[in-house]
């Protein structure tokens, strides 16, 4: 009898320790994830402006949102941004990974380090670096264009040019991580597969097309999902680089949410936009988990 109680006591104590170990993370989770989510949801049904107006207005914010051309512009810009940066980043990272794992390149690891290094810079620094290069009158790039006989490009005044600067800066800052993931994936592919194919007379394009690419499918998927999510989250870098301009041509979702919420103080309205954004991200995450699970079955 006594033995059983001590055993039970010890079991209880173990459970108490388990609770203690996870408590900090749970508290933080409730404070900085669950409660902001609910507060945001509540705001989205009000006309809260950060001060006193705080009336329940039902779905009015959402109705207004779907008639707001600025919101559509931000949403379309973000999707467009994703559609351009993700494939570009994917191809760049994959090509770099292939070259930097090939045996014919000398000093592979140094080159990898140099490609990876921009990912450690803060978004603000990335924005500043490219702003300095893309300066209209003082930037090096326009200077080089003029030297070779062209006319300088209005990087800050032409909307296509401004869009291009945000794309270049993003791919540059994001590529290193993806390249490393690809290199990790390439190392996992068994040499035997290549050897066997070579004996069958496959050339290097065929090796890539029929072995490398199919073997990389799960990793490719992960890279694409991660890139989509990070392109959706782009904020401080673009704020520094173009500040959303000219007009709204480089205003992306987070920038839009920030400026309506903090600058125009339309908290309720901005929260409604956040919720739409959240739903989009949620769908992406669910797709990602679903597909990841399928791949991990193999």
């Amino acid at each position: 009898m006594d033995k059983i109680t001590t055993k039970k006591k010890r079991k209880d104590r173990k459970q108490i320790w388990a609770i203690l170990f996870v408590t900090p993370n749970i508290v933080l989770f409730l404070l900085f994830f669950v409660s902001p989510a609910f507060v945001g949801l509540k705001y989205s049904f009000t006309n809260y402006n950060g001060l006193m107006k705080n009336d329940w207005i039902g779905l009015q914010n959402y109705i207004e949102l779907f008639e707001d051309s600025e919101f559509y512009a931000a949403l379309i810009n973000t999707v467009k941004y994703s559609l351009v940066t993700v494939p570009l980043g994917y191809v760049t990272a994959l090509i770099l990974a292939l070259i930097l794992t090939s045996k014919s390149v000398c000093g592979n690891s140094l080159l990898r380090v140099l490609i990876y290094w921009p990912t450690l810079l803060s978004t603000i620094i990335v924005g500043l670096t490219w702003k300095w290069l893309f300066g209209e009158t003082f930037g090096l790039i326009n200077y080089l264009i003029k030297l070779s006989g062209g006319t300088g490009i209005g990087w800050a005044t032409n909307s296509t040019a401004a869009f291009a600067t945000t794309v270049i800066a993003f791919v540059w800052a994001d590529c290193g991580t993806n390249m490393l993931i690809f290199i990790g994936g390439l190392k996992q592919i068994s040499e035997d597969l290549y050897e066997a194919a070579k004996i069958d007379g496959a050339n290097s394009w065929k090796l890539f097309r029929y072995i490398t690419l199919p073997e990389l499918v799960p990793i490719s998927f992960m890279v694409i999902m991660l890139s989509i999510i990070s392109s959706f989250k782009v904020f401080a870098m673009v704020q520094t680089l173009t500040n959303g301009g000219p007009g709204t041509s480089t205003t992306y979702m987070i920038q839009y949410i920030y400026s309506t919420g903090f600058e125009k103080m339309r908290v309720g309205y901005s929260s409604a936009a956040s919720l739409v954004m959240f739903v989009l991200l949620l769908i992406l995450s669910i797709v990602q988990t679903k597909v990841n699970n399928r791949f991990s079955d193999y």
Partner: protein
Amino acid sequence: MKFFKKLFINIIIYLFVLLWVFPVLWVVISSFKNGNELFRYPLTFFPSQPTVQNYIDVWNQFDFMTYMSNSAFITIVATVLTILISAMCGFALAKYHYRWLTIVFIMLLCTTMLPSEVIMKPSFTILYHLGLYDSLWGCIIPCIGTMTGVFLMRQFFITVPDEMLDAARIDGASEGKIFTLIMLPICKSQISILTIFSFKWRWNDYIWPLLALRSKNKYTLQLALRVLSGAEAVNWTALLSASVITVIPVLVIFIVFNRQIMNAGLSAGVKG
């Protein structure tokens, strides 16, 4: 023929990498030019009279020492706390088998779906009500709970054999003792990976300082840079040298821990 092909690939990739790091080099080179030369046509590549005056100016004009120590305080405290709570949580998730722990795990996984950028205003409300507004702790506490850290630790502790814990239990060690004296020391390499990433995240963080800090003397380096660059007439002379100063600590960490960083990136694809 094969030799030339190899040479060709090497030349191309070296040129490409040079182009890749060039933007940063250009900022560094420019930061040593004096204010006139910076905007004088034709542009010079190397500074004609290299000067550190910009650095001295920016150091004196702006309260850089304060910004830097704020950034350092946030980074160090947040990193220590992140490691501690991630290890605790990861250990519990890996080594105890209660049904409610699975629910905890799934709940924590949800956090990866809602980035803090999306809920900035409500987060601000919470910060404000917790009395963390305009305090450096407002940039620490909200971000020490990271799923990346918990996951990293959990994956490691799963590989630790249960017998190791049972042996210690038979010797009468409490669970807390097992964790601090046996488990923490064996996850050194996980701790170093998390240290590096947490350092990068917190040093480069912009969102939480933007939300939490108001007084100038509490600014972090990133926030100061943003304020400098958001001015009507951008003071590039100050900005360039300020950027270089801000990057140096990250560069040092990167050089020292280069191997761990590249390996961690390879295996986990840690994003933050």
